[in-house]
């Protein structure tokens, strides 16, 4: 019977692909969960090497891709939900495949407790929690509380790889009954003058007191302590120092793990990707993979669509950066700030469910860094004009801004205007639309391997 159900679910997926209604990446799982509500637990239990979960507001797709690469290069078979279907039905769809493997899944923040409860993973990687799509997830604090309940109930066999620099994550991880490996950055050189406006966790989860940030690296990530109750950042097991940012090209850093020291050359830009790499390396270490081997895997990381990946078109080159919340957008803007100006930009703001219906967040991101730095700007998506207004009030010359709600057509315009690389900043569904447009018009492969969150 179970096999029959699985075949039926797969057949539904095949139909959905043939009918052109999506990539068949979640429908089989949805069907399977109707036929067998315990499918996640049952199929997950058949993974020969157990499972690993990766969750975070920002960077879970990239971190999971990195960790997956590390595990594969160590010679193990990996079963991963690469299509970005990171809710239970997406994971069940993935589990219909060959289960003689280590299951490695990125999981939506809101669904992590349920998925972890069903899979009882060997390792959970907790990256960060930021203000994100408040209409969908609610307040950051409520996600942190649901994670805290999850962690308290974990078995001793589950290891955590956790971000010491995120006070929300660190306080959640501290209550784990099992082993916790922390990662973090210690580098005065890349510290911001003050936590940026979009910083969230200003208060101590333990006592409600106001946290003091001795150094801020990104949003509310940094070196902090609570003067009221004495809570301090845990000492990280894996530390990055001597960080060098190379604009949109990449980042390098010295990593210290116990007594060993390594130099990381990461082909992805920004402090945010450094955090992703630290999370993946810490996770790999917890799985018994040699740190040097893990680093090697990073240097040959295949690009993930929409994550700083260059796309070459007949009219020119575009670099695409997914933006979906203030902290993520700020980090992309920080990378662009290091590029030689003036910049040619395409920004696409959609307000569908997967983007967050509420577009308020663009007013929390620091687009002010673009003032005086742009040559041409095209705004697109269902809320193109609101994006344009945001840029106008950030100090971008309104005469240089064009508004065109149509994604594909506006991209063609933007590429035409650009004299060098076009920097493209779409929200999630705008990225998917762009991908479809490029696939239909540019003979590119469809990207079912493509973007997650």
């Amino acid at each position, binding site marked *: 019977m179970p096999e029959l159900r699985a075949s039926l679910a797969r057949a539904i997926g095949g139909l959905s692909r043939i009918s052109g209604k999506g990539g068949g990446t979640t429908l089989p799982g949805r069907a399977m969960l109707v036929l067998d509500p315990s499918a996640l637990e049952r199929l997950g239990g058949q993974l020969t090497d157990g499972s690993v979960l990766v969750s975070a507001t920002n960077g879970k797709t990239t971190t999971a891709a990195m960790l997956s690469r590390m595990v594969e290069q160590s010679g193990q078979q990996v079963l991963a939900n690469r299509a970005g279907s990171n809710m239970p039905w997406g994971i069940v769809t993935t589990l219909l495949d060959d289960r003689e493997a280590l299951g490695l899944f990125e999981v939506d923040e809101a669904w992590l407790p349920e998925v972890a409860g069903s899979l009882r993973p060997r390792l959970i990687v907790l990256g960060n929690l930021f*203000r994100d799509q*408040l*209409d969908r997830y*609610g*307040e*950051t*604090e409520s996600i942190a509380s649901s994670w805290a309940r999850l962690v308290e109930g974990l078995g001793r066999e589950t290891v955590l790889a956790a971000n010491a620099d995120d006070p929300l994550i660190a306080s959640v991880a501290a209550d784990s009954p099992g082993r916790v490996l922390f990662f973090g950055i210690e580098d005065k050189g890349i510290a911001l003058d003050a936590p940026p*406006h979009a910083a969230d966790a*200003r*208060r101590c989860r333990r006592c*409600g007191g106001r946290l003091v940030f001795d150094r801020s690296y990104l949003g509310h990530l940094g070196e902090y302590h609570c003067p009221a109750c004495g809570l301090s950042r845990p000492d990280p097991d894996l530390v990055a120092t001597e960080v060098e940012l190379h604009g949109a090209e990449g980042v390098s850093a010295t990593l210290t793990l116990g007594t060993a020291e390594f130099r990381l050359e990461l082909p992805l830009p920004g402090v945010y990707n450094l955090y992703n790499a630290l999370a993946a390396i810490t996770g790999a270490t917890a799985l018994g993979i040699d740190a040097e081997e893990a680093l090697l895997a990073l240097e040959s990381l295949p690009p993930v669509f929409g994550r700083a990946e260059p796309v070459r078109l007949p009219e020119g080159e575009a670099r695409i950066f997914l933006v979906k919340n*203030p902290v993520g957008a700020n980090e992309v803007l920080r990378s662009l700030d290091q590029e030689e100006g003036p910049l040619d930009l395409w920004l696409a703001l959609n*307000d569908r469910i997967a983007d967050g*219906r*509420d*577009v*308020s*967040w*663009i*007013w*929390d991101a620091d687009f002010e860094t673009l003032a005086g730095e742009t040559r041409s700007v095209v705004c697109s998506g*269902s*809320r*193109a*004009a*609101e994006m*344009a*207004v*945001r840029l*106008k*009030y950030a100090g971008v010359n*309104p005469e240089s*801004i064009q*508004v065109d709600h149509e994604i594909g057509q506006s991209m063609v315009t933007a590429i035409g205007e650009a004299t060098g690389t076009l920097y493209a900043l779409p929200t999630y569904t705008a990225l998917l639309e762009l991908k479809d447009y490029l696939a239909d018009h540019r003979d590119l492969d469809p990207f079912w391997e493509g973007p997650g969150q």
Partner: protein
Amino acid sequence: MTERVRLLTLYPDELNIYADRGNLLFLRKRCEWRGIEFEAKEAGPGESFSPEEADLIYIGGGQDRDQEAVGADLLETKEEAVTAFVEMGKPLLAVCGGFQLLGRRWSSGDGEEREGLGVFDVSTERGTGKRLIGAVAVEANLLGERLLVAGFENHAGRTRLGVGATPFGTVIAGYGNNGEDGTEGVLRMNSIGTYLHGPLLPKNPRLADLLLALALSPNDPNPPGLAPLEDSLEMAAHQEALDAALRNRKNRNRRSRVRTG
């Protein structure tokens, strides 16, 4: 004499959850472009102020924990000043959590009743049902002018107006105060409480300009108009926000009493 607007933001560090700073930026730029001097002031926990020091007050929304922390402080350190400010006919904009705090009663995250400032004759209870979330459009009336206001709401609280209280507007699409009686927000003299959260002014340039006009001449029933600005992008953004709310209504099709246009 140069004209000047002094904007006082209450609890900017605690109450900023939905990008409330977009409102401040919008007001600042629209003053600067007209040659009106703009001064931004803040009053946080423990800080008092005099109603004479400000021409316009803004108070935003925060996470439950922050709203709780601010509620008691507001009563302790700012009750008299806020009340006097409103009664002087000066303009105040209270958004989301800030709107609740200025009512008679509101409800904490775990459902306990809390005393509010009572500047607005409204009270808020923690709803037992779902949070009221979505794009919203309202027909409002300010300074005798009818205007459409569009934005986004996200609240668990259900707010009811007192017997003599005037709503800020009538819901065209979305939930408003409680999802039942079709009212949105509250208007008292020139002070507004509303659930349209975060950066509502960038979506509603006309409302922003009316607030500025009131800030410049609070006691004039017909304050002189401000110099016009080139607002084509702003009006397009306003239309997008209205469209989002009306699309929302079409999808849900659950409101029988509809007035548009």
